[in-house]
C-alpha cells in the first residue's frame, strides 16, 4: 500500500479476536483487592486491584466504591497512552464505582514489562500476533469482566471512557450502557499518521521511515485495532468527541466510525475550553445515569 492509504478489515479479524477471548478465558482473573487508606476518604473506599490477564500478566487498577448501599453507576476509565494514570477523580468517586486500569507496562503494572514512550506503539507491530496491543486490549477486556463480576456495580449503568480501547471493550464486552470516546489513535491510523508529525502517531512514521518495506505488515496489524471494524458490535450509546472540522478528529473524518457503530451515536463538538468541555461531558453521563452533574472547578466553598 502507498503512504496515507486506508486499510481494510483483515479476513482473519474475527478469528483473531475470538482467539484473544479464548486465551483470556484460559486464565482466571484471580482479583485481589487491598484497601488504600491514603486515597480513601469520607465518600469512598479506594482499593488497589490486581488481576491476571493473558501472558499471563498481573495488572493493576484503582477500584473505588462509594460508601453506602449499592449497586452504583460505574465508570471504567480505560488507560490512556502514557506511563501514568491518575487515581480516579474525587467527584467521580463520590458518585460512581470507578475502575482505572493500568495496562501491562504502565506504572504499577510495569513488572516485569516496563513500556517505553515513545516505543510502545510500534512494539511487535510487524504481526498482529506479536503486537503489544494484543495484550493491552486483552487487559482492558479483563477489566470489564471484573466489573461484570461485582455486586456493587449496577450492570445497567456502566460507562466506558477512553480512546480506541473503549470502543474495542464496548464491542467485545457489550453490557455497557455508555461510551465516551476521545483521542482515537488506531482509527484510520495509516491515513492519520501520514497527516501528522506529532507523537504518538509519529512513532508509526518513524518506524516506517526506518522500515519502509514493512508498510503492508504494519497496516495489516493496526487494522485489527481500528475501532471502525469493532463498531458494529457496539450496542452502547456512544458519545464521539469531535475536534475541528477538517482535522483527524473532525466530524467528517469520524463519520465512517459513527456510521458503523451498532448503537445510538451522539456527538459533542469540543470547544477547546477545558472547563466548558469537562462540565458538558460530566453532565452527559450524569444525566443519563441519574446522578448529580459536577464541575471539577470548585465554585463554592463551605
Amino acid at each position, binding site marked *: 500500500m502507498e503512504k496515507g492509504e486506508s486499510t481494510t478489515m483483515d479476513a482473519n479479524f474475527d478469528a483473531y479476536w475470538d482467539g484473544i477471548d479464548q486465551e483470556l478465558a484460559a486464565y482466571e482473573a484471580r482479583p485481589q483487592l487491598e484497601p488504600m487508606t491514603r486515597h480513601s476518604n469520607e465518600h469512598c473506599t479506594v482499593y488497589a486491584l490486581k488481576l491476571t490477564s493473558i501472558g499471563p500478566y498481573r495488572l493493576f487498577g484503582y477500584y473505588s466504591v462509594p460508601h453506602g448501599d449499592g449497586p452504583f453507576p460505574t465508570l471504567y476509565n480505560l488507560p490512556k497512552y502514557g506511563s501514568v494514570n491518575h487515581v480516579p477523580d474525587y467527584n467521580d468517586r463520590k458518585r460512581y464505582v470507578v475502575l482505572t486500569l493500568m495496562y501491562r507496562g504502565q*506504572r504499577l503494572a510495569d513488572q516485569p514489562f516496563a513500556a517505553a514512550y515513545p516505543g510502545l506503539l510500534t512494539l511487535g507491530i510487524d504481526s498482529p500476533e506479536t503486537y503489544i496491543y494484543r495484550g493491552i486490549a486483552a487487559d482492558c477486556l479483563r477489566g470489564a469482566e471484573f466489573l461484570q463480576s461485582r455486586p456493587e456495580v449496577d450492570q445497567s449503568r456502566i460507562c466506558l471512557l477512553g480512546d480506541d480501547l473503549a470502543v474495542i471493550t464496548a464491542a467485545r464486552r457489550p453490557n455497557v450502557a455508555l461510551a465516551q470516546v476521545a483521542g482515537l489513535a488506531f482509527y484510520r491510523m495509516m491515513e492519520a499518521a501520514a497527516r501528522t508529525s506529532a507523537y504518538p502517531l509519529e512513532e508509526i512514521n518513524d518506524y516506517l521511515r526506518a522500515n519502509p518495506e514493512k508498510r503492508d505488515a504494519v497496516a495489516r496489524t493496526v487494522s485489527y485495532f481500528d475501532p471502525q471494524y469493532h463498531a458494529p458490535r457496539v450496542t452502547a450509546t456512544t458519545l464521539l468527541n469531535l475536534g475541528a472540522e477538517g482535522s483527524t478528529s473532525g466530524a467528517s473524518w469520524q463519520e465512517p466510525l459513527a456510521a458503523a457503530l451498532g448503537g445510538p451515536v451522539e456527538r459533542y463538538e469540543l470547544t477547546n*475550553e477545558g*472547563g466548558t468541555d469537562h462540565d458538558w461531558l460530566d453532565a452527559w453521563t450524569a444525566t443519563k445515569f441519574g446522578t448529580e452533574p459536577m464541575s471539577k472547578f470548585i465554585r463554592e466553598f463551605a
Partner: protein
Amino acid sequence: MAARKPAHEYQVTLERPADFDAFWEKIMADVAEIPLNASMEHVPLRSTDEVDIYEIHYDSLDHVRVAGWYARPKEGYIAPPYPGLLIVPGYVSEPTLPKSWARMGYATVGVAPRGKLRSNSQFNPGYPGLLVNNIIDKHTYSYRGFYVDAARAVDFLLTRPEVDPKRIGVHGSSQGGALTVTTSALRRDVISCGAAGAPYLCGFMDAAALTHSYPYEEINDYLREHPDHEPMVHETLAYFDGINFAPLIKAPMFVYIGLEDDVVPPETGYALVDAMTCPKKLHASERCAHDAGRYWVMPMVEQFLAKHLQPATTREHAEPTIG
C-alpha cells in the same frame, strides 16, 4: 456556602523563608562540584531529513544520572548557531521528543528529571508519590533533585558548540510551567526568556485547599493520614514554591493560565506573576481549565519565544505543549 472570589483577588498564605536563597545556593554549589559527564547517542529511528535526535544523559545532584532527548536541526536544513530551548515535562507525562521545535530552528532538550522513565533507576517514588515523597524534610524532598535536574539540562545546552549561549529559553506547562520558573531562577544568568503554562508547584498549600484534583490532592490525601505533619509540610514546601523562586528571575516571562483550572488553581498563577520582578506578561483564559487556553495561546508562546530567541524560521509550528 461562599462563592469563590475572582482569582486575582486571592492572597496566598505563603511566606518566604529567610534562608531560602542560602538553601538553594548551597544545593547549586554542591551540584557544581559534580562533573556533568554528558553523553549523546544518535537515534536514527527518530531522526528525519530536517532533524537529528539524540538520547542524552548527564549527572546531577546526588550523582543521579538523568536522561533526555536532544533534537537539533541538521546543518543542511538550518545552519548553526541555534538558539537553545529547554522543554520541561508535566507531572505524569513523559518528555516528548521536541522535534517540532527543532524544525523551527531551536536546539532543544526534552528532559526527564529523576523519577521519570529512563531516569528512575536510582530514584523512583512513582506516581502518585513524587509530590509527597519525603515532604516533611526539605533536605531530602523529591523536588530538591528534580529542580536541579531541569537546571542541569541548561548546562548540557551550554556544552554544545552549535548552541548560542546568549539565546537559551525554557518552556513547559503544568509541572513544566513550574520547572520553567525554577530553572529561570536557578540559571538566571543564562536564561533569556521563559514561557510557563498553568504553573504548578506555586502556593502548594493554598492550591491543595482550592481543589480536589490530582496531583495536589496527593497533599490532601497525605495530610488526612498524617494531620500532625502539617507544620513540617508547610515548612518544607516553602523552600520549593515557585512563588518564592519568582523574585530571582531576570529574564522576560510569559505566563498563561486557565480561569477554571481545577488542577492548578488560577489564584496561584496570579500570585506567581505578582511575585516576579522581571519583565512579565500574564494571559488568563476564561472558561479554560488545565489546558490554560493552549488552543489559542500556543501561537503567542511561539511568538514570545521567537521574539527573544530568534530561531531561523517561524514557518513551522510546534506541537501544543501539554502538561
